């Protein structure tokens, strides 16, 4: 297998030779020299634990804590600027140590033994993965130790489209095209209305015969001669037109309008001249 990995500046460091010391960013050179390129405090702890040369399950946590703290103190004495997480770990280990050494009566939960056990488990887990990684990398790897065929002829798959269309879709599509092509006819529906002119004529003629106040509604036609005046839409139109007609008559001084309460009946009478 050929790996065509284009190194991207951000990820290129992931491809360094992992046996080589980590590249040290210039400013922190001293630190990196001192801590030997450990990847964080757990990494350093694991390395110290390995130096005890016992099974990770049997390491002495107290000894490990001491080793770590000595290490950190030495780094500090050398005025090396340690990354914060190394110091946090140092603080936590110091706490763990004192808790382990304290009399057992006022122990918190989790107990220091439990914490020590967890730390040990974490070191074991990391140790196991590190070992697994090394074994994985040491396998016969494709493209390095074993190879696939250098010049395969290749298998070709010729794709062919089997187009589907039904008779109905075809005919329907034609119908749609024809529909689109028909000249568009827009029709505005006429509504049944009473025009202002007819309302004006009607109101003024009725005012002429009325002597007293008459409610506007009573001006509306009720007859059924040819037109169904009971149609609510037509009645609304007639009322509106008659109202406007009355306003017009009032404007020219031929009528008086009165309404006692808001939304109350509108009454009309002729102005006596």
């Amino acid at each position: 297998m050929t790996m065509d990995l284009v190194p991207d500046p951000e990820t290129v460091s992931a491809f360094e030779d992992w046996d080589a010391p980590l590249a040290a960013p210039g400013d922190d050179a001293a630190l990196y020299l001192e801590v030997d390129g450990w990847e964080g405090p757990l990494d350093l702890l694991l390395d110290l634990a390995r130096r005890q040369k016992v099974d990770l399950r049997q390491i002495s946590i107290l000894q490990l804590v001491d080793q770590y703290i000595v290490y950190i103190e030495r780094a500090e004495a050398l005025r090396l600027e340690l990354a914060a997480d190394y110091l946090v770990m140092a603080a936590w280990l110091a706490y763990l140590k004192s808790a382990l050494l304290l009399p057992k009566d006022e122990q918190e939960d989790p107990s220091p033994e439990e914490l020590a056990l967890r730390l040990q488990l974490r070191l074991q887990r990391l140790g196991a993965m590190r070992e697994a990684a090394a074994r994985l990398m040491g396998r016969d790897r494709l493209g390095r130790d074993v190879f696939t065929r250098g010049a395969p002829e290749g298998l070709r798959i010729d794709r062919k489209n089997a187009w589907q269309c039904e008779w109905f879709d075809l005919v329907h599509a034609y119908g749609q095209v024809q529909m689109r092509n028909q000249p568009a006819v827009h029709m505005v529906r006429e509504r049944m209305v009473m025009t202002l002119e007819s309302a004006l004529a009607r109101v003024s003629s009725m005012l002429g015969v009325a002597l007293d106040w008459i409610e506007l509604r009573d001006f509306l036609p009720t007859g059924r001669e040819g037109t169904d005046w009971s149609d609510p839409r037509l009645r609304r139109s007639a009322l509106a037109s008659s109202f406007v007609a009355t306003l017009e008559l009032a404007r020219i001084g031929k009528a008086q309008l009165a309404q006692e309460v808001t939304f109350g009946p509108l009454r009309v009478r002729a102005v006596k001249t």
Partner: protein
Amino acid sequence: MNPPGDLERGVEAALFAAEKPMTAEQLSAHLQGADVREALASLREHYEGRGVQLVQRGRTWHFETASDLAHLLRREREEVRRLSRAATEVLAIVAYHEPVSRAEIEAIRGVQTAKGTLDVLMEAGWVRVVGRREVPGRPVIYATTPDFLVHFGLASRKELPGIDELRAAGLLDPVDDEMIVAALAGDDADEDATEIDDEDDVGLADGDESA
């Protein structure tokens, strides 16, 4: 079967992994200068009659798949695909109006027709170029193919329903017919609202007279 010797295995692996055919000398250089001729001969024999053969061309050697199996290395896969709405419309126009040019199709559809649409119809085998129209620009004209008739189960194009039949089948009704009816209903209108409209003026006039 005799197990192959180390040299033969080495030659086999080297030729298999090689990106180019190799000469005996090149192989030899890979294999600590060993004489590879015998190994090559023995390998060639081993692969005889198998699906893969060791072949010599001029001075170089390489593996290749047996020539009688070439047909296995290609495979055709059919993908069923539905014609798009645009393509269906174009096909319908070609069928009803053939022969037509692309400009005519566009005029009928009222929208531009992507070149790809006609290509799809030609790939499907339903439309073909039947010549050029003898007008300025000599546009290519299209018509349907016999395959088109077969696919749609038509004896001839005459079997395509005419406009009147389409209308009778409701295929020429406006798409949103139902929506218009619904809208009218929502307006309290009766079905024959249009008839009433025609009489409005009369009605009003009547009203005036009756007043």
